[in-house]
């Protein structure tokens, strides 16, 4: 087990940031600095070609100052002290100061935050990672004659950042790993695809898929060639954790990002302290989940990570804030101020968002459905915080008849509905739990790594 440290460029600038913030605060009532560094590796192996390459590397910093009414920021794609000093000087000069209250940076703290890694990716060479992908490619390629291409990809991103505010100097280092096997299958007429993903924060231990899972993937991919389109209508359904998770994320997560409250875009604002779902439903956002893909120890505005309970037994308890929304709404901050990079502003964003585990065995969830659909493997979703509509797309739906899965598949399956109706219809919550990573946008941009998940859920939903 190893602890991660800051890359040298960030280590060199760490001690100089407080001075820049102090300079800013000679003019502005609140100042802050964030310096970031990310570097990655991508490895891809398919039937026809392979690649080992650096994933696009980025380094930069953003200086922020509150002018009495709003934030003004200058960002530069450099960690050179003179570049940052120049940006700080320019920002101080262009501030449009106005009278008014200002955010507070929080209590003093000076700490580097990191978590130990089991198999540190730095101890393995790019050749090791290529061979890992080649082994999985060889293992999966011959599993079914319908496979026309198998693509194995490994992505590793080492992210580090330093935040400086008045009295606060915090830093963190995190490595995110995504490992995916994608199968393209064909019967000569139709083409389909199916995939398996492993992701998380940590080390190479994440990139492991068992042989029986590979065989199941190949069998399911081939079976998808016979998948039909589902008859539209309302169904009793069972969600797997990936579908549960995207429902949690899209249906309620985006709608409780508190910048939406400031902008008048959140219907959830009318439901604070009120019931919005079944008493079986508990929903959390927790950036501290060990090893989850959306985890972090420090948000991009200097707030140390901590879990937030959004729904407790179906009642809306609190939302997720960034600095601006917490200040404007006069509510406590949560550690959800996140940026796509130094190039973009911070917004209130989710981290790992999930339904809490229940008590019902998964077999019993399915056995309790007379006629319905088992939905698994989410491919996308979209929020509607004002209308409280929701769209989630599952790659696979499997018919349930008489409490049993029949093997009859549908693909893809769209799940739509009105959020309170969906949450109120939850009739059983599984005793399992899994998280699935991905990248989340705000609207159509501002991508940040997140995960979502939970247990299997049984509920009613409109499918199409």
């Amino acid at each position: 087990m190893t602890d991660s440290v800051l890359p040298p460029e960030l280590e060199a600038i760490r001690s100089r940031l407080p001075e820049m913030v102090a300079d800013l605060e000679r003019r502005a009532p609140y100042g802050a600095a964030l310096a970031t560094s990310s570097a990655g590796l991508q490895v891809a192996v398919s039937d026809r070609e392979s690649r080992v390459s650096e994933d696009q590397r980025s380094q930069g910093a953003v200086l922020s100052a509150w002018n009495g009414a709003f934030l003004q920021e200058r960002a530069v794609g450099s960690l050179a002290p003179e570049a940052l000093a120049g940006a700080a000087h320019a920002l101080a000069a262009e501030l449009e100061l106005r009278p008014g209250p200002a955010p507070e940076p929080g209590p003093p703290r000076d700490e580097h935050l990191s978590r130990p890694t089991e198999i540190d990716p730095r101890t393995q060479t790019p050749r090791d990672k290529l061979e890992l992908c080649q082994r999985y490619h060889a293992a999966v390629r011959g599993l079914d004659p319908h496979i026309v291409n198998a693509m194995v990809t490994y992505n590793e991103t080492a992210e580090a950042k330093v935040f400086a505010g008045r009295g606060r100097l915090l830093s963190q280092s995190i490595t995110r790993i995504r490992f995916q096997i994608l199968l393209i299958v064909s019967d000569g007429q139709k083409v389909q695809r199916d995939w398996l993903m492993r992701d998380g924060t940590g080390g190479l231990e994440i990139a492991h898929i068992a042989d029986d899972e590979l065989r199941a993937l190949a069998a399911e991919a081939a079976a998808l060639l016979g998948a039909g389109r589902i008859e539209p209508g309302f169904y009793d359904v069972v969600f797997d954790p990936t579908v549960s998770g995207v429902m949690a994320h899209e249906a309620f997560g985006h709608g409780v990002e508190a910048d939406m409250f400031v902008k008048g875009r959140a219907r959830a604002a009318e439901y604070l302290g009120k019931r919005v779902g079944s008493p079986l439903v508990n929903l959390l956002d927790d950036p501290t989940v060990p090893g989850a893909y959306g985890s972090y120890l420090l948000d991009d505005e200097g707030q140390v990570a901590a879990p937030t309970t959004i729904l407790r037994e179906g009642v809306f308890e609190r939302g997720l804030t960034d600095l601006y929304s917490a200040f404007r709404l006069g509510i406590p901050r949560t550690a959800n101020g996140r940026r796509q990079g130094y190039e973009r502003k911070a917004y209130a964003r989710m981290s790992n968002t999930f339904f809490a585990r229940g008590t019902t065995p998964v077999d019993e969830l399915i056995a309790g459905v007379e006629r319905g659909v088992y939905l698994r493997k989410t491919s996308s979703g979209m929020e509607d915080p004002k209308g409280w509509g929701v769209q989630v797309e599952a790659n696979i739906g499997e018919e349930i008849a008489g409490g049993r899965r029949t093997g009859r598949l549908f693909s893809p399956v769209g799940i739509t509905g009105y959020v309170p109706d969906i949450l109120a219809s939850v009739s059983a919550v599984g005793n399992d739990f899994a998280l699935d990573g991905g990248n989340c946008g705000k609207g159509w941009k501002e991508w940040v790594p997140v995960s979502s998940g939970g247990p299997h859920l049984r509920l009613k939903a409109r499918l199409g």
Partner: protein
Amino acid sequence: MHDHLLQTLGHTSGVHDWRLRRVVTASTQYYLAGREPENERSVNSERFEVEVYNDHPAAQGGEMRRGSAAVTLLPGDEARIDARIRQAVFMAGLTDNPPFDLPGPAVYPQVLTADRLLEAEPARVARDLAGRLLEAVAHEPGISLASAEFFVDRHEMELENSRGVNGREARTSLLVDFVLLARDEAGHETESHVEVRRRALQGVDLPELVRRQAQYARDTLRAGEPETGRFPVIISGDALHQLLGGSFMSPLAFRSSARFKYEGVSRWELGASVYDGATPTGDPLTVYANAILPWGLGSGAFDEDGVPGARLQVIEHGVLRSFWAPQRYAQYLQVPPTGAFGNLEVLPGSLAVADMWQGVGLLYHVVAFSSMMPDPVTGNFVGEIRLGYERRGHEVRPIKGGSLSGNLFVGLAHARLSQETVMLGDYLGPQAVRFPELTVSGR
């Protein structure tokens, strides 16, 4: 940095070819929460993207193979250039791909990609747009502004390679993103959200955009649910752009890509129908990969390898005529290199938009999806209807909720395309398409 990089690439052992892209970016961003500023920022960055190509005997068989790998160098990296290039050579040497060449020098077309109005005073443009937006919203009764974002960006690119390519181009882009709220007398509120990306200021008609989005927000207030069944469906504007343009890549571009043909993912064949077995009954589909469309978001004088931008006929009357092909995959498939796809250009059809609803009984017209990301491999799609209209003869009522699903390639076999065209950033084509039958999952 630049000269040192060239010297290092020239003398480092194992660098058999190289490509160097210098990208300088300046971004001005302005945000409103309600009517008030929320944030104002400026961003400047510079990076050198180096791709190194290494030729070596294959690990198995011994024939010559080529690998390539990228590294990014940033300001402050001067002392690490040698080590970074050696790292790239090491990574490139790990993979045994079939050999391919880099493009050589070429005459590049003149393409409109940089708007002087955006280049000159980006901060002023952003603030002016905010002012014009607030003014336009003030003219809409019952409508207020929830939020707005304005990005004025400029990218300057210089491209060189070991075979003599030398190109330089500036590209601007403008993003306008805003959310309007409508409120009825009972206090119910709805929103309409739009995000517009264009290369030039002239591509954004803000008053018209506000008028349209305000009407969408008002219509959403009184929208009901659609019925369930299979119905004729018109999809228009941004919703059509999403359907044809896809999320990361248009399904039409994906299927006609030499790369995905080489990978075995596209089953399309030159000279064969693109309708996945469906017998065409609609307007014939003709598609161009247009990388030289004036002000197109996908336009450029050259692609990332240095292949000149061009307008390529990909599909003619529903038959695949060409695969669009970057240099590498052109050689793998033994087709001419055409460069990047650029923008999706679809030729117009035979039906006026005003005639699309005539004589078909119950019909749905979708103007906004919550999300529409057709699967480029299968062509299947499903998307929630954020706003649409149900038409029964002269009766029109707004609808929302439920989903629309189908298969894009089969649907296009039977689709009627509008005579009128629209330019939406990286799409030039029919303003609306009528599909004779798609599945609606509603009440």
